[in-house]
């Protein structure tokens, strides 16, 4: 299975980790107001962030702009927000998305509301990178908590799945004047976990030339006429694999990677649903109150009469993550479960 990305051709293939590093380096060169702040991001001889994304950046930009912090998520988020309010463009880092809960107040009550409360006089241009995803780490190191933030007016929520869009979106996010939460899947970085991602090729073509990919725009990863499948990250690749299998049965899936969850690209998704008349949503976030529910509601509101069957969702079951692999695999939406949801949707 290959990670199909933007332009499919081209020799220069990068992992998501490399693409993100390139995006950060380019933006730091472009604008001296961009800086990185977080735990274990630039310690000499250290990890270059929890997933090695920042390796080498301290050598180029120095410790003034790659700031190692105490383990103090509230302070990291608060400092990033405050600096952003003063016109800087911080990239705070908390290692795992699971630790976002440590600074919910800063994100939800401060970052998201400053622009509105100041009647547009202030803005909080920061990008918080959030590694998500099940990887045998148990209940507190594998969550996909993006939907909590989709509920917060004032935040933007991005969810990347391949190196091409990761780079283009991260560059856009850094230049965006609103606070952006940028969700990345641990198994898709390509720095580790190749095996866990099922032997997938985790690289994608990333052009040498500078480019941006806009926030708020979805991409159609596979064209089809039978059913629309909207999926992110690991669920996206599982959906694409399921789509290949279903093609043998004459079911042609149109698979869409929404890329931005807030604001959703309704135009692309609605157009597809109006064409296929069927919708399946797949995500690793838990089912109840997940972003899939919001998408389903919008499609029900705007495209109900185009639908030929009930909308189906394949999501993580509503339990915390267990660590034992046999149980973990039951909880997250597997390729088989996504395939079954598509089949069920196509029966109706």
């Amino acid at each position, binding site marked *: 299975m290959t990670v199909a990305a933007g332009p499919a051709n081209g020799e220069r293939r990068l992992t998501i980790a490399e693409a993100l590093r390139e995006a950060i380096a380019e933006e730091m060169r472009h604008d001296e107001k961009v800086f990185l702040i977080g*735990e*274990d991001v630039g*310690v*000499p*001889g*250290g*990890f270059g962030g929890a997933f090695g994304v920042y390796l080498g950046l301290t050598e180029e930009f120095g410790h003034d702009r790659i700031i*190692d*912090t*105490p*383990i*103090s*998520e*509230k*302070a990291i988020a608060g400092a990033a927000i405050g600096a952003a309010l003063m016109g800087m463009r911080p990239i705070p880092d908390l290692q795992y998305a*699971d*630790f976002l809960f*440590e600074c919910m107040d800063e994100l939800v009550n401060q970052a998201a509301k400053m622009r509105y409360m100041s009647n547009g006089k202030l803005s909080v241009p920061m990008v918080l990178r959030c590694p998500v995803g099940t990887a*045998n*780490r*148990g*209940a*507190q*190191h594998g969550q996909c908590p993006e939907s909590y933030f989709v509920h917060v007016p004032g935040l933007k929520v991005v969810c990347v799945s391949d190196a091409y869009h990761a780079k283009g979106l991260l560059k856009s996010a850094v230049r965006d004047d609103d606070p952006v939460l940028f969700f990345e899947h641990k198994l898709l970085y390509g720095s*580790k976990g190749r095996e866990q991602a099922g032997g997938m090729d985790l690289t994608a073509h990333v052009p040498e030339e500078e480019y941006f990919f806009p926030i708020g725009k979805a991409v159609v990863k596979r064209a089809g006429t039978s059913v629309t499948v909207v999926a992110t990250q690991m669920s996206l690749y599982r959906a694409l694999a399921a789509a290949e299998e279903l093609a043998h049965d004459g079911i042609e899936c149109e698979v869409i990677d929404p890329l931005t969850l807030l604001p959703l690209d309704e135009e692309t998704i609605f157009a597809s649903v109006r064409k296929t008349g069927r919708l399946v949503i797949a995500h690793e976030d838990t*089912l109840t109150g997940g972003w899939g529910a919001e998408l389903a509601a919008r499609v029900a509101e705007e495209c109900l009469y185009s639908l030929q069957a009930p909308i189906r969702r394949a999501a993580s*079951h*509503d*339990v*915390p993550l*267990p*660590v*034992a*692999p*046999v*149980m*973990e*695999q*039951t*909880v997250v939406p597997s390729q088989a479960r996504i395939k079954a949801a598509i089949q069920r949707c196509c029966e109706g």
Partner: protein
Amino acid sequence: MTSGTGVENTERGVSEVDTAHELDLYRQMLLIRRFEERVYLLYLQGEIPGTLHQSQGQEAVAVGVCDVLQRTDWITSTHRPHGHALAKGVDLRAAMAELFGKATGCCGGKGGSMHLGDPSVGMLPAIAIVGGGNTVVTGLGLAFKLMRTDQVAVCFFGDGASNEGAFHEGLNFAAVQHLPIVFACENNLYGASTPFHETSLVPDVATRAAAYGVRGEIVDGMDVLAAREAAGRAVAEARAGDGPSLLEFKTYRFAGHSRGDVRGYRSRDEEADWKERDPIVRLRERLALTLDEGILDETDTQVEAALDEAVEFARQSPLPRPEDALTGAYATVIGREATP
């Protein structure tokens, strides 16, 4: 293990330790050391899934502190919980099976390495959120106070955790409520790759106790007898209703932060210096003055045998059923439950 080992408090708060007791402390530390070594190998060989944070070097803290606790006392632990779990009396086989992700594990395979624990011996599932235990532990203490029991709760946490807001809120709250709690900081000099001295202008965590009006003490965390004695005093005070204290154990983790850490952020000289103070070697040398080497070797053999047996138990144990994943989130299930 907490069973039968000198918890009766003398006037100084701590009972004397005789040679048999010292030998037991040695055995417990060795068990933790060999456990950590074994599970790391098993992890590298692919038999243990997930990730591991090992605590070699820090055994004296876990063993010294838990030695003065009763079975009915409670501890909270961290992402580095193996030593705490074994010292508090979590069954060796159940701990091993948990790391293997087996149904017979102490959390049924739901917790894994980072959430080892067993309520029946007074250990919450370890909390892998840095500083997570520092606030929750106050609730344990509050319950003991409200229920008028004489139980004590110990919160293990790292130097890194002392920079979380939770550390400060938990300590102040426990102080002002006079809760029966001991905050046991294992200062191993690093939070992941970051040196503590780069994250705090106060070199000693114990100093921070003064800010909250509680007793703070620096303890040699590489000496199990010193750890035991300091913990004994703090626990006795907490039990007597004198409120919480903050103990800072100066210690060192010999291994990397987690799997695959090549430790490029610290020097080999520093590592060698700390290995000179290996708590197990130190106690063994001390014991060798009075005990026959044969007895010590015999202890080593017993530890290996216990571990062989635990590994075999874990290997033979059944996997959890896949559908077990979908139950257990609620005490009372209302409405439809998920199906695999």
